[in-house]
């Protein structure tokens, strides 16, 4: 069972890293925010799975903190996101 959960954690994490490409690529600000959010959610899921696999309940506290602060940070991001004039953001 523990092995299964570990593999699941790895898979979730792998998808998250794939999602990271979107943060890196953009192009729109919204994409980066969403990808960061996915990173948060995926990280939480991976932590929970890892915690269950290794019987480390403290990891759930990390996940909890991450959930709280990720919400906080993504609100700040959505609020701060530049609303630029026509032409939008230059691709990077």
């Amino acid at each position, binding site marked *: 069972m523990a092995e299964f959960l570990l593999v699941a954690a790895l898979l979730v994490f792998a998808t998250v890293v794939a999602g990271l490409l979107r943060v890196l690529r953009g192009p729109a600000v919204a994409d980066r925010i969403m990808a960061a959010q*996915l990173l948060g959610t995926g990280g939480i899921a991976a932590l929970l799975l890892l915690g269950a696999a290794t019987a480390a309940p403290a990891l759930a506290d990390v996940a*909890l903190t991450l*959930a709280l602060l990720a919400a906080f940070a993504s609100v700040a991001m959505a609020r701060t996101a530049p609303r630029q004039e026509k032409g939008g953001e230059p691709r990077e």
Partner: protein
Amino acid sequence: MSLLADVFTIVAVLAGLVFFIAGTAGLLRFPDTASRLHALTKADHLGLGLIVLGLLPRAGGMGGALRLLAIWGLVLVSSAAVGPMVARLTRGPEGRE
């Protein structure tokens, strides 16, 4: 009983995984920001929800289970709040697409 719980966990976690993969794929492949947003929220809500559900029998008591549910709730609420804000960024003259 324990076997049943294990099977439950495996099925739920696998289902959650599918949603995560689908969400990420959507985020990477969909052509425009609005549909990427839809894909993402699915992963957020259901992927994590299913994994939490699957881990509930292994949470070790009420406290652990409550903590798991609280995490899910937090993610739901924050994504519900951030979603519209992000969506607004993608609309109108100021956003892209």
